[in-house]
């Protein structure tokens, strides 16, 4: 009997075997039970969303499906057939493709090389590369996924890197495509573009699983949505039968505030004044092309922009981590050495600048150090932390850490745990506690809530606002437009090393900012 | 029982220590006696080994190598009833026999042979490490070469500065090649295990080589011109034979005493012409008679013939 399947019509589900069916999947990482007896059906030709707090086990589940991890127990059925997926090769053979939350690309390979890796055509590269080049072209045309096949991954923007990941999956002719938090790093325009692509894929009969934290996106593109909480699958519902508030409640298990309360800013004197800041990186690429900006006491200046347009360099140059090629700046009216010849992180701290780095793992924390050692990090010269010129006062640091942990509700409240063993949100709280409690004149803060779940975001945002209300200047960089809107008193948009324009949050829209972020000044063509 | 202590090179170093070992074995074979032999592994053991042997009643105790001198100086007075013999070193103590060889004299003789065998008037010398002992070989050799042929050139090289210098036949071979390219057609090796590579390369390149310490003529029959033999074996044999009554004091094993010399056997008979034999015998006689004074590098730390 042949059944004609119409994409999106779940009423056919009883007749057609689902594209994916997981039964009783469990997985533990040591003491952490990441997945507990998970059951889920994903119908053919649908877009199926999965949501859940950080650490709920979404990525783990998908990685099991893709053969990256092996489940401790449970069964996987693909198109109704019980299938053993012990490694990614088996998953690829079963027609599954996955775009990981953390991309699995070889940074110093070209796009083409990354695409064919593992799916080469014979032992020699030339023919494979030629074939791939052709195929890539047609895929790019079919799905609006154009990327320069010869560009090196490390030179691509995150958005383009993601396209490469999708191309990798399509190149392996995947029928089932898993995307793990694909929009976290994209501009609204890019995200819209991605969704168009996904809809296109769906219309070609492909099945798509989409993991995201953004309820708006779930509502916009998915047919079904599953909710995970603490390793368990708590619900699967047709999207049209639910609402964002319902979903948020299902996710967290309580009601959440989706918006921060804040009063209007009362800006005071100018704290930071930057003129003509230029930065050229190791490779000779000009990353900042003349930045002028000021931040005043008691206000938050939000810098919006797609990742990779110079925001990181701006923060690092101001924090003394990289040296500027030209430009000048003052802090509280005193000149700031931007060349790094007479200054470094230590000098900046002494000048009243605190810095919450974008990448807490790479810069903000020493993962192998205990929480209390991390609390002294960067402030290890503080007399309060030292007995004398030689010895540190560990007891004092410990005491201070305990106080900070308490105030910032870091969990678990154990200063002896290594930074690594805290969850992402709690790691971020630790960094914030360290920097905010210094009561700096200027706080540089990058991606304050990256990879942090809703509950913690709420708290972190409150802390930032509180610091502003205490009359401090804050320079905020974030790729999350929601966050920019929620916190900023003024918004500057960066594109290609320049500031494209400045807007008031109340007098602009996501759409307008999106255009600026894409390099368009907003004037009609 | 007597005891024999080898230096760090180990008893199978194909030259100096191995010669001592041969002397011990010969004594054991001829007398049916037994002896104890041990190899050093570290500097700190020298004292340990000496004391342990003395305390366990070994007598006499023979050791090879100048490196023992300093330690023996300290240890010997503590064991007045034991006699010690040190080869290649001088220790001034009641119960120590110091045996030294006049390597420069032996080297002079092979130098004469080298100069006469050379058709290019260029001969080579490969030393293991630039240390005084090896300089003494080098200087005697150079003097002998110059004596036989005033126009001859001696090319001198040393292998290295780390212990690997004594165990690097590959570099030994390359240095030999370098000397050959400078015209050398006879090469004298005083470089332990490195010498294996020197002799090999010389044989491959069809030039002559000269062995050292033991008779190495048989390593490449017909291609090793001769070997400068240093009769360490005799020194050990004598000491062992003398037993507990071994006389102490300084023993200079020179040419006259048969302590050093050049090797002639069926392997190199055809290489040494009558004329060469005459010349070297004459030189030998003159040295013994005192008519030729072979310069000892150790006497002034310099070599006028290089």
């Amino acid at each position, binding site marked *: 009997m042949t059944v004609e399947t119409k994409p999106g019509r779940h009423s056919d589900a009883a007749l057609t075997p689902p594209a994916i069916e997981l039964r009783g999947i469990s997985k533990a990482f040591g003491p952490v039970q990441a997945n507990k007896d998970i059951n889920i059906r994903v119908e053919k030709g649908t877009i199926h969303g999965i949501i859940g707090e950080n650490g709920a086990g979404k990525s783990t589940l998908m990685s099991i499906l893709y053969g990256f991890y092996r489940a401790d127990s449970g069964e996987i059925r693909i198109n109704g057939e019980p299938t053993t997926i012990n490694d990614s090769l088996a998953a690829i053979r079963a027609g599954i493709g996955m775009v990981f939350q953390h991309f699995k690309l070889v940074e110093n390979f070209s796009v083409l090389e990354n695409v064919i890796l593992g799916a080469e055509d014979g032992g020699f590269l030339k023919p494979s590369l030629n074939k791939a080049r052709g195929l890539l072209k047609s895929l790019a045309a079919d799905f609006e996924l154009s990327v320069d096949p010869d560009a090196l991954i490390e030179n691509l923007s995150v958005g383009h890197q993601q396209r490469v990941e999708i191309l990798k999956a399509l190149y392996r002719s995947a029928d089932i495509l898993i995307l793990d938090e694909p929009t976290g790093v994209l501009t609204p325009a890019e995200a819209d573009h991605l969704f168009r692509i996904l809809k296109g894929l769906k219309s070609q009969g492909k099945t798509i699983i989409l993991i995201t934290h953004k309820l708006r996106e779930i509502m916009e593109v998915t047919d079904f949505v599953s909710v995970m909480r603490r390793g368990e699958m708590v619900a699967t519902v047709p999207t049209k039968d639910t609402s964002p508030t319902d979903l948020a409640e299902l996710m967290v298990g309580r009601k959440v505030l989706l918006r921060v309360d804040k009063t209007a800013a009362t800006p005071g004197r100018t704290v930071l004044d930057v003129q003509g800041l230029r930065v050229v990186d190791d490779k000779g690429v000009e990353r900042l092309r003349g930045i002028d900006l000021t931040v005043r006491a008691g206000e938050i200046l939000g810098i919006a922009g797609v990742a990779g347009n110079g925001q990181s360099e701006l923060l690092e140059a101001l924090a003394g981590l990289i040296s500027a090629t030209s430009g000048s700046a003052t802090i509280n009216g005193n000149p700031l050495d931007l060349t790094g010849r007479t200054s470094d992180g230590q000098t900046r701290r002494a000048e009243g600048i605190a810095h919450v780095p974008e990448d807490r793992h790479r810069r903000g924390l020493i993962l192998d150090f205990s929480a209390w050692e991390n609390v002294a990090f960067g402030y290890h010269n503080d007399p309060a932390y030292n007995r004398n010129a030689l*010895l540190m006062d560990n007891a004092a640091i410990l005491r201070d850490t305990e106080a900070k942990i308490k105030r910032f509700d870091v969990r678990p409240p154990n200063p002896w745990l290594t930074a690594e063993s805290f969850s992402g949100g709690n790691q971020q709280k630790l960094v914030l506690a360290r920097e905010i409690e210094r009561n700096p004149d200027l706080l540089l803060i990058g991606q304050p809530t990256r990879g942090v779940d809703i509950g913690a975001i709420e708290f972190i945002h409150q802390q930032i606002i509180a610091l502003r209300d205490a009359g401090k200047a804050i320079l905020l960089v974030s790729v999350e437009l929601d966050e920019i809107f929620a916190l900023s008193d003024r918004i500057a948009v960066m594109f290609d090393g320049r500031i494209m324009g400045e807007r008031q949050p109340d007098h602009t829209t996501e759409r307008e900012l999106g255009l600026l972020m894409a390099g368009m000044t907003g004037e009609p063509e | 029982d007597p005891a024999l202590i080898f230096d760090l090179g180990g008893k199978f170093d194909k030259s100096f220590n191995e010669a001592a070992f041969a002397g011990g074995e010969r004594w054991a074979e001829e007398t049916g006696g037994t002896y104890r032999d041990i190899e050093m592994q*570290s500097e700190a053991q020298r004292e340990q080994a000496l004391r342990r042997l003395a305390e366990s009643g070994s007598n006499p105790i023979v050791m090879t190598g100048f490196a023992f001198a300093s330690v023996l100086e300290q240890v010997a007075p503590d064991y007045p009833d034991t006699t010690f013999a040190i080869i290649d*070193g001088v220790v001034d103590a009641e119960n120590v026999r110091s045996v030294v060889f006049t390597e420069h004299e032996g080297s002079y003789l092979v130098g004469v042979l080298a100069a006469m065998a050379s058709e290019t008037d260029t001969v080579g010398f490969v030393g293991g490490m630039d240390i005084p002992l090896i300089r003494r070989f080098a200087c005697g050799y150079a003097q002998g070469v110059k004596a036989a042929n005033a126009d001859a050139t001696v090319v001198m090289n040393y292998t290295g500065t780390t212990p690997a210098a004594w165990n690097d036949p590959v570099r030994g071979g390359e240095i030999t090649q370098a000397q050959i390219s400078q015209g050398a057609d006879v090469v004298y090796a005083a470089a332990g295990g490195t010498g294996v590579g020197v002799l090999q390369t010389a044989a491959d390149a069809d030039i002559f080589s000269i062995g050292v310490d033991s008779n190495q003529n048989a390593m490449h029959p017909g291609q090793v011109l001769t070997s400068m033999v240093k009769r360490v074996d005799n020194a050990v044999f004598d000491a062992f034979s003398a037993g507990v009554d071994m006389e102490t004091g300084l023993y200079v094993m020179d040419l006259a005493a048969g302590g050093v010399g050049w090797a002639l056997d069926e392997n190199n008979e055809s290489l040494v012409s009558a004329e060469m034999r005459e010349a070297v015998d004459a030189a030998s006689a003159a040295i013994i008679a005192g008519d030729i004074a072979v310069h000892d590098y150790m006497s002034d730390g310099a070599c006028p013939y290089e």
Partner: protein
Amino acid sequence: MAVKRIPDWADVVLVPLVSLILAFVISALVIVAIGEDPWAATQMMVSGALGSTYGWGYTLYYATNFMFTGLAVAVAFQAKLFNIGGEGQATLGGLGVALACLYLPWPHWSLALLGAALGAAAFGALWAAIPGYLQAKRGSHIVITTIMFNFIAAAVLNYVLVNQLRPQGSMDPASARFPEVTQLPRLHEILEVVGIPFSRSTPANISLLIALAACVAVWFLLWRTRLGYQIRAFGHSEAAAQYAGISPLRITIVVMLISGGLSGMMAINNVMGEAQRLVLNAVEGAGFIGIAVALMGRNHPFGVFLAALLFGFLYQGGAELALWTSIPRELIVVIQALVILFTGALDNMVRMGIAKVIGPAKQGGA
């Protein structure tokens, strides 16, 4: 194949123990293969190294060397610098000791020790700081430069001993004997004070106490001082260290100075304490053993201490074996290799085996 978590006590006690046993079992097989009796060999090693105060004296003497070089490697490793130059730094340290002992008039051994230790540390530190500087400033890979500096040190020493320090007329490329006053107290003299009889004829000397003090000092440095904090932070993440305002240049050079100084200090044990003169190749590979010691000791001073003792035992036990039996001395090198392999590189294999036997750690226990 995930490495199973096992209880902490098993990780600390059982894993090294089982690893050692495995290493010795295989060593026994090697001994059988060359036609010797492994049981007799074991007895001889143990009694030779630990069976008498005499054996202990040698074991501790070697261990002292390894503590210094092991600490040197460990300190550098804490800053993620792989210092393979211990050999050269200890060589130069020997030169420092010799110059201090020979050319300065010391009134008492204690002052001489102070002076010699300073000389040793200074020379060793200098020899390590150049590669450190080149790495930090010019990006020259420290592994290459320290290897090269080992060779250069050997050449320097060779030149100095043959042409400068050798007494006129001496055959031995070694310095003159140091003046009597610079002779360090031997272990038996120290122990006599507290009434413990100890063999008089071993080279173990007061340097042992200095090495122990160095272990404590390094621990103190790394985990109690601000400098140590910065060193460890730099070692874990250069990018983070830069964020914290820790200068990579400064830390690299300072760490290499400390590391080289520690390597150099080894010379107070072997050159001043034992030989009382400087000889060619006085270091005898202790610089390389230091790498193994540091790695096995997990770059922790206490681990270094234990590993140094283990290697001291292997050295002395092995020496006894080679001295008094027909077993070749290279057997010891093989045993050392197996010990390094099993305790240092195959530890996870042992861990997994243990997990199978005693079961994994209870939830939350790891």
